[in-house]
Structure formats: C-alpha cells, structure tokens
C-alpha cells in the first residue's frame, strides 16, 4: 500500500486536512455557522470553474472565490437577533450567485460533464507534491491563527454581550474566523471536492460534541475523529475500488455519528433506571 506515491500523497494531504478541518469545523459547529461553512464550500466549485474557463489553475479560483464569499456573507451586524434572518438570506443568495456564475463559465468549456464531476467530488488520489506543500503551509497558518484566537472567539460565541462588555472586538473576531475558514475550505476543496469539504468540517465536530462535554477536550477529540474518518475512508476506497472516496469518508463518519449517539443515550437510560 505504501509503495504507491499517489497514495502516500493522499494520506499525507488527508492527514493535514483532517487536523485542520477537525479543529476549525469544531469552532464552526459551536458557532452554529454550518450554513455559512457549507456556502463557502459550495462557492469554491464555481470559483474553480471560472478559473478554468479563463485558463488559470483551479487553485486560484478556489482561494479567490471562498475569500470573496467570506467577505460578503461573513459580515455580522451588531444587533444580532434582527439581522440573522437577512444573514441567512444573504448567505443563500451568495451561494446561488456563485453557482450560477460557475454554471455559465463551465458550460462554455468543452468537457462540461467531466470537469463538473471532478470539481464537485474531488480527486483525492490525484494530489501532487506541490499540492501537499501548499496545503501544509495554508493549513499550518490557519490552525495557528485559530488557536491564537480560540479563547476570545469561544467567549464571543457563547456570550457575545459579555465579550463586548469585556472589550473584545466581537465583529472583527467573527470576520477573521470566517476568513480563516474560507482559506481552509479552499485548500481542502482541491482534494476532497467542493461537496465533501463540508463533511470533514461538520462530522468530526458533531461526533465529538456527543462524546465529551468538556470544551477543549472535545476540540481535541474532533481532530482525532477527523483523522480516523480520513484514514479509514482512504483505506476502504483503496481496497474496494468501486466505493468512491466521498462515500467511504462520509459513511465512516455516519457510522461513528450513530455510535456516538448510542453512547450518548446509554448513560441517560441507566440513570433513569437508578432513579426509578
């Protein structure tokens, strides 16, 4: 298994992506920004389509489009309650505009169907060594940035009023996190495809939150779960070639999610039994 260079690249890139997506996805889920994260992931696909139509490498499109979308959709007003509905509507609209632009761009390229499929579902097993280096640098930067702002960010997430009273720049923290999330999504998209970045962001965090309640521990568990999902997923697709990687990875995640839900429900039942 180790003698195939493409598989080594996939495993190295997958490991880096899992660590970063596990950590940032955990913050994303805590902040209840799954819709925003998903939109950024969707936007990366048309970005790549437009870049291809202009003869640029798709990577350029990934980064430009997600960062642009983060700037438009990631703004959050100070009067939160009233603005949330519009923030949702804006997020959805940004997603749709990007997809429409991507559709126009990509329908002018001759290999419409093929490139659509590979942009949406990724080419994990076509990762080059340059890709690995770029993902490593971007991932390390994003991880460090998130760790550096983790404490104030979490406070701002759980209690924006207190955070503001304590003098924290809540709006700027939120915008910075969205920007970092956009970078991670862009670097992950090129290997997992636009549609499955989101799986790596949301699944480990959801599973971790069901298993542990202590906050920093659950962040670490999320990273561990992400690694397990990626490694087992790549292994499944390698040994059973008919299974696409997207299916293997999300299925491993789903099995772990169901198991975590069962674990979470069990102590409840014993407690009820003791009480009665």
């Amino acid at each position: 298994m180790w003698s195939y260079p493409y598989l080594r690249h996939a495993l190295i890139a997958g490991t880096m992506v899992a660590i970063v997506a596990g950590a940032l996805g955990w913050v994303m889920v805590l902040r209840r920004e799954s819709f925003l994260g998903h939109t950024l992931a969707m936007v990366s696909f048309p970005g790549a389509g437009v870049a291809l139509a202009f003869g640029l490498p798709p990577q350029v499109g990934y980064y430009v489009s997600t960062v642009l979308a983060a700037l438009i959709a990631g703004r959050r007003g100070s009067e939160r309650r009233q603005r949330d509905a519009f923030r949702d509507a804006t997020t959805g609209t940004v997603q749709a505009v990007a997809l429409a632009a991507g559709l126009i761009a990509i329908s002018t390229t001759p290999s419409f169907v093929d490139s659509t499929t590979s942009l949406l579902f990724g080419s994990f097993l076509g990762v080059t060594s340059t890709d690995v280096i770029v993902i490593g640098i971007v991932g390390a930067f994003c991880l460090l940035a998130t760790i550096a702002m983790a404490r104030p960010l979490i406070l701002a997430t759980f209690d924006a009023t207190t955070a503001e009273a304590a003098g924290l720049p809540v709006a700027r923290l939120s915008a910075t996190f969205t920007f970092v999330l956009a970078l991670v999504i862009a670097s992950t998209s090129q290997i997992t495809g636009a549609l499955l970045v989101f799986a790596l962001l949301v699944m480990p965090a959801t599973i971790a939150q069901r298993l542990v309640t202590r906050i920093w521990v659950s962040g670490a568990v999320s990273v561990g779960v992400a690694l397990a999902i990626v490694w087992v997923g790549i292994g499944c697709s390698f040994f059973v070639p008919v299974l696409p990687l997207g299916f293997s990875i999300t299925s491993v995640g789903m099995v772990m999610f169901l198991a975590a839900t069962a674990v979470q429900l069990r102590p409840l039942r014993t407690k009820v039994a003791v009480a009665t």
Partner: protein
Amino acid sequence: MTTLSSLFSSHFFLVALLVGSLVSAICGLVGTVLVLRGELFTADALSHVAFTGALAAFLVGLSTGIGLVVSCVGCAIGLQLLGRRAPSADSVIGTTFAWILGLGTLFLSLSAALGNGASGATSTAILFGSLFSISTASVTFTVVGGLVVIGAMVVLGRPLIFSTIDRPVAIAKGVHVEVLATMFSGLVGLTAALAVQSVGALLLVGLLSAPAGAALKLTRSPFTAMGLSVAIAVGSVVGGTVIAGLSPFVPPSAAITLLAASTYGIVAVLTSVKGHRHGH
C-alpha cells in the same frame, strides 16, 4: 438569431415559462416562511438529498420525479422529527446530508460501473436543472404538486406565520406548533422536489432565499412579504427564461438566479441608503 416573437410562439419556451412561473411562485411563498424561521439550511440540505434520490431512482429504473418526491419529502420530515430533540439541529442536519451526498457519489460510480453512459448527463441535469427540456409527464407532475403546495400554504399560512413569529403565544393559544412544523417540512420537501427539475439542485437555495430576502427588506408585514416574494420570483423566472431563450450561452437556471439575486442586492443597497438618510 432568435427573436422575441418567435420565442413566444415556440412550444418548449411556453412550457418552460408555465412550469418556471409555478415553481418560482411556490419557492417565493415557502422561501419567505423559511427565511423568517431561520431554516434555509434545511432547504440547502434538501438540495443535496434530491441529487441522491434522483440518482437512486435512475439506477433502479424509476422516474426521477418519484425519486425526488420520496427523498425530499421523506428527508424533510425526518430531519424535522430528528432535529426537534437534538440540541444543535444544524450539525445533525449537516452530518446527515453529508452522508446522503456521499451515498449519491456511490450511486454515480455504480451506474458508471454498470456501463450506464447517461449517468453523468443525468447528474448534471439534476444539479443544474433542465427547464428547456421538460417532459409532458413532468409538467403534469409540477402543476399538480405546485397547486398542492399553494393550497396548503393558503390554509396553513396564518397559523404558520403566527407560530414562527411568536411561538410561546401560539402554543398558549392552542396552535399545534409541532404538527404545523412537520406539515411545513413536508411542503418544503415537495417544493424542493418540484424545483430541482427546473432550476436544479444547486440553484434551489437561490430561488428560496433571494426573493424572500428582498421582500422582507421591503415590508414588515409577513403576508405582504409573501406576495412580494412571489412577484419577484415569478418576475425573475420570466426575465431569466427570456434571456436564456435569446442567448445560447446562458443556461436558464443561471439567468433566473442572477436576476433574483440582483433584485435582492439592489433592494438591500437601496434600503440601507434610505436607512442611513433617516439616521438609523
């Protein structure tokens, strides 16, 4: 060069206009309530479920319409029932639809492995819609389904808005909030299934969010907003279909989405300018 008059005398174009208007009308109606309830993410999830449902139907040889309705309505109601007990509904929704989408990639690779060359084209049609090549069966299906959604929204509209805006008072007044929420989820599922055939799965969210967002910026009354949202959505579809009919380079779903989105953009800019002038 296609002219406007030859466009309006062609059959496929009139069918596209009829189906598109009906679908956009229900998206405008349902979308307003979705935005008010903060549940747009559910619709986003359904657009992915639709992809898998349609591919599954294609794989076993059923019509995509059946696959779409079963998967979307089933999943919408399932998520509603599941999400009610979950502490953080959107991560559960996200996890579920990420897996369902993964399942879709399996169906895609299975049908390719079975030597079914049309699977790639089918998946593209589901993702991006095919307003200009709708079959007679789909037209009947859309008209019946669309009328069901409109009828249900007329009946459920008032209690639904009530329970959205002031849930505790609605419960105190004896409104069956949970039953309503489940029925509404079913309607959202049906709307998604109908819309995917014309605008496509990936652009569904745009038709649900942009007209509703624009309408809610223009008025405070939810019912006026529903009417306005329907008007903006239908307007975008008529305009978008004409543009796509005249230009061979612009797919109809893209033109419709861009029109609806620019309406929202313009309205948002105008209302914020007006807001600043009044010193808010």
